[in-house]
């Protein structure tokens, strides 16, 4: 039974430069900070960073896998507190977990946590699903 405090089992996604390119094409966000290391460094970033919206989309996949598909999600929000840093030729983790924070009839609210390399990347992330 789903109730306040029910834990959604942690899942690890892996992010590399190839997925950043694929997401840039799929989303239309071709900002070079997500693909070009030289450019990213020139604007003061530590390296190429993932699109915040890719991080959020993967957190969304975590939610939809649990809730029974994309159709389940009614509300979804996140704050981009730190970037996911993606060095060349590496796969970095995006570790996502969740807990049910509210149950209101058929609507279930989930508080989502997401970290990469141990650093919190999404803040105040919540989803409302109908499972």
């Amino acid at each position, binding site marked *: 039974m789903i109730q306040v405090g029910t834990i959604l089992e942690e899942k690890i996604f892996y992010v590399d430069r190839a*997925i950043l390119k*694929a*997401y840039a*094409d*799929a*989303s*239309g*966000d071709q900002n070079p900070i997500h693909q070009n290391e030289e450019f990213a460094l020139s604007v003061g970033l530590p390296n190429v960073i993932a699109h*915040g*919206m*890719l991080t*959020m*989309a*993967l957190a*969304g*996949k975590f*939610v*939809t896998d649990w809730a029974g*598909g*994309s*159709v389940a*999600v*009614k*509300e*979804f*929000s*996140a*704050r*981009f507190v730190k970037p996911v840093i993606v060095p060349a030729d590496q796969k970095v983790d995006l570790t996502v977990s969740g807990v049910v924070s509210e149950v209101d009839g058929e609507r279930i609210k989930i508080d989502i946590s997401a970290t990469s390399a141990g650093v919190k990347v999404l803040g*105040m992330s919540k*989803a409302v699903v109908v499972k």
Partner: protein
Amino acid sequence: MLNPDSVGRTFEGAESVTVSQSEIDAFCAVLSENNTTVAPPTFSIRITLEQSQEILSNPEIGLDWSRVVHGDQRFDIKRPIVAGDTFKCSSTIENYKVAAGNEIVTVRSDLHSEGQLVVSTWSTLVVRA
């Protein structure tokens, strides 16, 4: 700096946008989502980002898009997006403030298909000082 007169104003996207199955497929592929009959919950950013970028880059509004960082994002989804949906996008500058020299702008975008509201999104954009 953003023109303060633009706060509270709603801007209509110039053209309607039709979602194709191949666009949904590409978005799903990135997420290893096998069910491509509906779009993933964040798919609408593909439409709203471009539209709000176009609107906010208007010289009359004055946002310096080259210095924008995405602060937060929210979706209110009435029903999932499917291939064949044709959207009209309207964007409203809901909130604007300056904090520590950074401009913080909240833009709401509504996507309507055949007169029905399908998705509302709120994007908070930070224009770095």
